[in-house]
């Protein structure tokens, strides 16, 4: 076997935790430092630490484990069915090296954009059909258009890199693996809407992402790449509610991270009262590719209402845990069974069975195994009472009871509620206690009625998205797994 010409070593959080430093060390000792480069996530995080060997003829070999003892199959559908747009350079470039990013096309789209009228840039975005990847799926081009149309010469671009959903690590992968891509996307947005200031709001639990962003901002500024656009990093303490846009803006201003009623929307009155464009990391990260290859190219991928690609974090009871980027509209079955390899076999050798897939984190819901052929897009998931959310996908097997899953997410909302409005602050506490009764099989029929009524109330009356969506995991498991709740009642009877 011919020796590889170079090695790429994953140096992202999950692989670091699995021993990436030791793997890198041994590769450097064998092949020399100049042949080993650090890169971002190589996708199959569950087999980490990961290293890729690049051969002269273009062949790639993939290894997992500290001693690179596990050879992985790059021809597995987990890799071949991916469609990398947002992650096109993640795993290829050294996130700490501007030269490397530039050599692989970073900032090329920005240079072209700056020659274009801002209006043309917004139009290209609208043509792409890109929708916000932070959860709500608002059309990005329309949001840019709104901010661009605001009067005044002082505007702000904000990147929401708070990523607080349990089971989600898509944004972290972009920040750690290709930070220049985010800066480029934000600088393009700034040109398009007429902003001169930018903020990236990252949670303090992402120290590596923060370090890489700091380095990237300094390097890009030193090169004059961000000319006319002052970029700042803001570190949040890591509260889920600070991902809510108005709370995030309060937090940047130095206030308490609590949401306020909208309108006014940030596009009209945001940070310091200025028109503010706020988008998610993945949304900004899609922008350079869209402007380089055209809105029509991007819009040709995906489904009628959900264009392009989406990054998902696959975890839970699944054989291949990791990060995938696929075209919108790919079925859950393809993702979970073909790419993810389904539920691992039980210790006794019998095949594992998928019970449901939880999407959208604490705001989302469960899609039962019988509906795995659902195409993954905004409308498809919504029709099932779940949501795309930011892209966490947790596979659930038969060992987990649904009231327990619902209680887990409710506990998360209880802990993360900001406490400003009553339904969320006090309602989630009562919901969690009601769910306790089901988990402990001491619920009554009246508890089930109460559970449903209170879910309806909290959903309809809470101030922000946290409270408005906190009941979703309960409602969705009630919809498809009601029998489990009813059994818990029967269990309490004489």
């Amino acid at each position, binding site marked *: 076997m011919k020796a590889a010409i170079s090695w790429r070593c994953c140096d992202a959080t999950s692989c670091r935790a699995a021993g990436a430093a030791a793997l890198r060390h041994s590769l450097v000792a064998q092949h020399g430092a100049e042949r080993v480069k650090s890169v971002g996530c190589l996708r199959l995080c569950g087999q980490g630490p990961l290293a890729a060997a690049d051969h002269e003829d273009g062949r790639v070999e993939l290894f997992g484990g500290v001693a690179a003892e596990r050879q992985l199959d790059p021809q597995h559908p987990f890799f071949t069915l991916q469609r990398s747009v947002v992650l096109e350079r993640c795993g290829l470039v050294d996130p700490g090296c501007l030269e490397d990013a530039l050599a692989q096309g970073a900032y090329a789209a920005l240079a072209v954009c700056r020659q274009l009228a801002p209006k043309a840039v917004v139009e290209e975005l609208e043509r792409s059909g890109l929708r916000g990847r932070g959860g709500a799926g608002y059309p990005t081009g329309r949001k840019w258009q709104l901010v661009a149309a605001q009067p005044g010469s002082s505007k702000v671009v904000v990147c929401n890199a708070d990523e607080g959903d349990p089971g989600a690590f898509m944004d972290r992968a972009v920040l750690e693996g290709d930070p220049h891509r985010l800066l480029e996307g934000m600088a393009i947005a700034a040109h398009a809407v007429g902003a001169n200031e930018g903020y990236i709001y990252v949670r303090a639990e992402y120290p590596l992402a923060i370090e890489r962003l700091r380095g990237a901002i300094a390097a890009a500024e030193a090169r004059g790449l961000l000319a006319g656009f002052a970029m700042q990093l803001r570190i949040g303490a890591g*509260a889920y*509610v600070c991902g809510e846009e108005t709370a995030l803006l309060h937090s940047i201003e130095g206030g*308490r991270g*609590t949401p*306020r*009623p909208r309108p006014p929307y940030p596009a009209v009155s945001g940070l310091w009262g200025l028109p503010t464009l706020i988008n998610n990391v993945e949304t900004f990260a899609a922008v350079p590719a869209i402007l380089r290859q055209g809105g029509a190219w991007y819009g040709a991928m995906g489904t009628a209402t959900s264009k392009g690609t989406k990054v998902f974090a696959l975890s839970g009871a699944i054989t291949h845990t990791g990060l995938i980027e696929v075209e919108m509209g790919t079925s859950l079955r393809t993702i979970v069974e073909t790419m993810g390899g389904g539920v691992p076999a039980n210790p006794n050798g019998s095949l594992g069975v998928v019970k449901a897939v939880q999407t959208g984190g604490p705001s989302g819901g469960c899609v039962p195994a019988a509906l795995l052929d659902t195409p993954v897009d905004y409308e498809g998931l919504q029709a099932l009472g779940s949501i795309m959310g930011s892209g966490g996908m947790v596979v659930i097997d038969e060992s987990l009871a649904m009231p327990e899953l619902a209680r887990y997410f409710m506990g998360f909302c*209880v*802990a*993360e*509620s*900001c*406490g*400003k*409005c*009553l*339904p969320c*602050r*006090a*309602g*989630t*506490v*009562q919901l969690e*206690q009601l769910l306790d009764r089901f988990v402990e099989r001491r619920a009554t029929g009246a508890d089930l009625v*109460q559970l449903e*009524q*209170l879910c309806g*109330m909290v959903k*309809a*009356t*809470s*101030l922000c998205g946290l409270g408005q969506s906190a009941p979703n995991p309960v409602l969705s498991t009630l919809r498809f797994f009601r029998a489990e709740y009813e059994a818990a009642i029967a269990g309490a009877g004489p």
Partner: protein
Amino acid sequence: MTQASPSITLQINGQPCTVAADATLLQAIRSAGLQVPTLCHLDGLTPVGACRLCLVDLEGHPKLEPACVTTAAEGMVVHTHTPELESYRRMAVELFFAEGNHVCAFCVANGACELQDVAVEVGMDHSRFPYQYPKRHVDASHALFGLDHHRCILCTRCVRMCDEIEGAHVWDVGYRGSACSIIAGLDQPWGEVEACTSCGKCVDACPTGALFRKQDATAEKQPHPERAQQLAEARTDRRWHNQ
């Protein structure tokens, strides 16, 4: 003569109603002689939309909106008391009672409490939700006033009163979720916060018996919710200017 400001017409519970173009729905509802329960709102202070009691139904609008922070618009069709709203409001009041320790018989504000009034208004006779009996504390460190956290409903009226009207910003909210509480200074005993001018405005703003004057015994607290507006208006009208 007051300046003629542009006005708009909307419909509330089937009744046409004309208000100034910048009026909130709450102002419109009240000007039509109608009522919707409120707790966090106090005329004269910046509205925050936190208690969610004033939610109303707007025809053709997918979400319920709080009347206190929503601007009235031409042609709006508003409903303040649909069966759905009434049921949600009642649940909200039950949740308020269940999350604190509201033993009215032993409260300074008994008979003069807005939480009680709202409970009567929505027809709440008991709570379906189990009481949480939280273990909170009483801050009696101030020479003149006290704060019983058990009776605090986190409406933040005291916070806004002290900040916006008195200008001392003694109060704020600390912690999160059900652990939220009103804090003085840097979470100090109230009596140790030098910024406090002992003006008593926060006590006047408090809708329950949470903030009280030390000399008040059970059922003796006099509510003064009108003070915020009086002071705010006096200030905008420059009533004390060069008199």
